[in-house]
């Protein structure tokens, strides 16, 4: 048993942090936040592609580095910490994972090398409105090889080249072009773009089986673990910011970090973050090993990480006081991202429900 990153993985993580410190300071995140015309940081996206990160978990035969999913988790943690404003999760955690799970050889050969090279941006389109995605909530359908329906919201849908769409009878690959129109949406996190996608007889290709909900959930299980690491990276950064401010800020003649109201708040953050880290590690193991425990481990990792990031991002603002409520403070970048990451693969409430469902199934077995 070894429940930690290996030395090589730690090295990769350190290198990723150095790279992102140099290429993804908060000024770069703000450049996307403040410019409605900017969907993502194009230069950062290219630079990340040049690092090979997009293909970290993609097999060599499909143009990837084949490092493994734990390495991808290490990269995800650093991307989350940096609040990176790029379509990494959509492309890698959702679309590449969906292709690796369900793609035919031809589909993998066609798309995975281009994803690994940074030439293709992906989007995963499931939701059609408010509330959890279920078999009953899906109206998008396919007829004679043409897909018709509306998806809202689709993260990175406005910039995606390849969209994996959930229809009534399964997942479909749709190339962004004929029959696809995008309307950019205003969201809580403008550093990650989102769109309403309307498909009108769009050419499509089946990806996997007819059970679309099961396929979506299998992709969500994998994405949930990777997202948990982004959330963990963000939550840890919030704790660092709160700690730094608590040491710098004086009130009533002493550092505010000396007051127990602040000390205990930050201790609570630390406890939640450590529990989230431990659960994320277990999820990483299950993902990388292809273990049967993955659905439960993924739900556990996601609920813990969503809870930890929400708590850390909101209490970081609180610790910063009035300064934390300003646009110029970085606190809200993390608060916004915590909302985006908590919802993009289904809400915490839906994941709690899924978790208990998994426990019931396990007990019944």
């Amino acid at each position: 048993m070894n429940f930690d990153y290996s030395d090589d993985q730690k090295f990769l993580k350190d290198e990723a942090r150095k790279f992102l410190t140099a290429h993804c300071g908060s000024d770069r995140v703000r450049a996307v936040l403040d410019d409605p015309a900017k969907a993502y940081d194009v230069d950062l996206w290219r630079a990340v592609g040049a690092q090979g990160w997009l293909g970290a978990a993609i097999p060599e035969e499909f143009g990837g580095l084949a490092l493994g999913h734990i390495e991808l988790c290490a990269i995800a943690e650093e991307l989350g910490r940096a609040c990176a404003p790029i379509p990494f999760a959509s492309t890698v955690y959702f679309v590449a994972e969906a292709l690796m799970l369900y793609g035919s050889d031809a589909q993998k050969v066609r798309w995975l090398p281009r994803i690994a090279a940074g030439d293709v941006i992906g989007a995963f389109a499931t939701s059609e409105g408010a509330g959890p995605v279920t078999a009953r909530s899906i109206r998008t359908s396919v007829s004679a090889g043409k897909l018709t329906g509306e998806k809202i919201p689709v993260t990175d849908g406005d910039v995606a080249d390849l969209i994996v769409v959930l229809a009534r009878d399964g997942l479909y690959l749709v190339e962004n072009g004929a029959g696809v129109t995008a309307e950019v949406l205003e969201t809580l996190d403008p550093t990650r773009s989102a769109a309403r996608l309307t498909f009108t007889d769009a050419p499509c290709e089946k990806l996997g089986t007819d059970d679309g909900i099961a396929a979506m959930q299998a992709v969500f299980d994998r994405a949930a673990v990777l997202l948990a690491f982004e959330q963990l990276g963000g939550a840890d950064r919030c704790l660092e910011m709160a700690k730094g401010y608590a040491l710098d800020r004086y009130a009533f003649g002493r550092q505010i970090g000396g007051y127990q109201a602040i000390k205990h708040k930050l201790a609570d953050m630390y406890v939640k973050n450590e529990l989230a880290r431990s659960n994320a590690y277990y999820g990483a193991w299950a993902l990388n090993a292809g273990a049967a425990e993955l659905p439960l481990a993924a739900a556990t990792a996601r609920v813990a990480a969503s809870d930890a990031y929400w708590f850390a991002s909101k209490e970081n603002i609180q610790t910063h006081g009035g300064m934390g409520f300003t646009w110029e403070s970085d606190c809200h970048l993390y608060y916004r991202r915590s909302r985006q990451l908590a919802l993009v693969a289904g809400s915490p409430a839906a994941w709690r429900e899924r978790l208990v469902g998994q426990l019931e199934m396990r007990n019944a077995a």
Partner: protein
Amino acid sequence: MDFKDSDAEATYRAAARDWLDANIAEHDAGHYPDDMAKAKAWQARKAAGGYACITWPQEWGGGGGTPIESVIFGQEEARHAVDGSYFTIGLGMCVPTVMAYADDATKHRFVGPAVRGDEIWSQLFSEPAGGSDVAAIRTRAVRDGDDWVINGQKVWTSGAHYSDYGIVLVRTNPDVPKHQGLTMFWLDLKAPGIDIRPIHQMSGGSSFNEVWFEDVRISDAQRLGPIDGGWKVALFTLMNERLAIGTSGGVGPADILAFAAQANGTDGPLLKDAAFRQTLADWWVQSEGLRNTRMRTITALSKGQVPGPESSIGKIVAANQLQAIGNTAVEAGDQYGIISDPALTPLKGAFHAATMWAPGLRIAGGTDEILKNIIAERVLGLPGEIRVDKDQAFRDLPVGA
């Protein structure tokens, strides 16, 4: 990251399992809890097999093994109804302190019998005026030739009523600031002048004691560490406490899940209640978080790293969860929930017992608040508390009730 046993670990686990199966059968399993004679016999059997104090050197009666092996054996042993709780404080805190600070003759006299379970040890630190503020100890030891004479009172001493020996922290110099006038000794709890009185807890039981000292005479040879240097020795003991008090036992998410599948909710079984399911998921996430955090601690230990304060996290989370799970099951009974008679309640009263025991667990071994201070100060590096007593002689400090 690998959650499975390595080949060597799997071999060790298989051997441990075989040994347990063979020896539990001979030992007459099922002595849990409260049967000290059987607990001692089991401890002796483990010592003979190299499974007591697995990480300690063999020359001291330990198993000469690794932290991971200790954990593996613990996991396998937990599948059987045997109780090692009599030895937790002695072997987890007191005897390591003796091993670190006593002379060779003392170590040779005491370590072996403790490992074999022949002798049980207690830790005597807390006092009526020194709980969270452990250094506020008032029990006095006064030098008399080659001896010391102790007067005062300790409290919340776990297991003193069945223990043979103890380590005790006393004030030897009241004229200096409080941390600088303390000294540690070991002593025989059966010595003349020691009066042990069980505390009647709010939970109904009596696991703790008051220990009164009236002119108790001990030799200077029983001193552990320098005169007035006891605080450093106490910190060594308490560092081990964090590792010793890890798991809380009691009811967990799996227990309340099983209960909820049977219990009546507003509309069908409680387990189908949406609000209950949300809360259950959070408990599961916490429990798994603690379990996986322990795995990270073991990984750190196995690499020769010093484990961090993860166990402080463990007790805060586990104690509060125990209280919440117990009370949720109690409230689920609606009017019936007030009944605590084990014959009439789910799981033979375990949820009710947890509700009544949890307040103690949130206090014992460091309150929630003290543990959060420890995390904030030692892990996050936030400023320590303002100490108005820091530079004053102990005898000049104001005292309350």
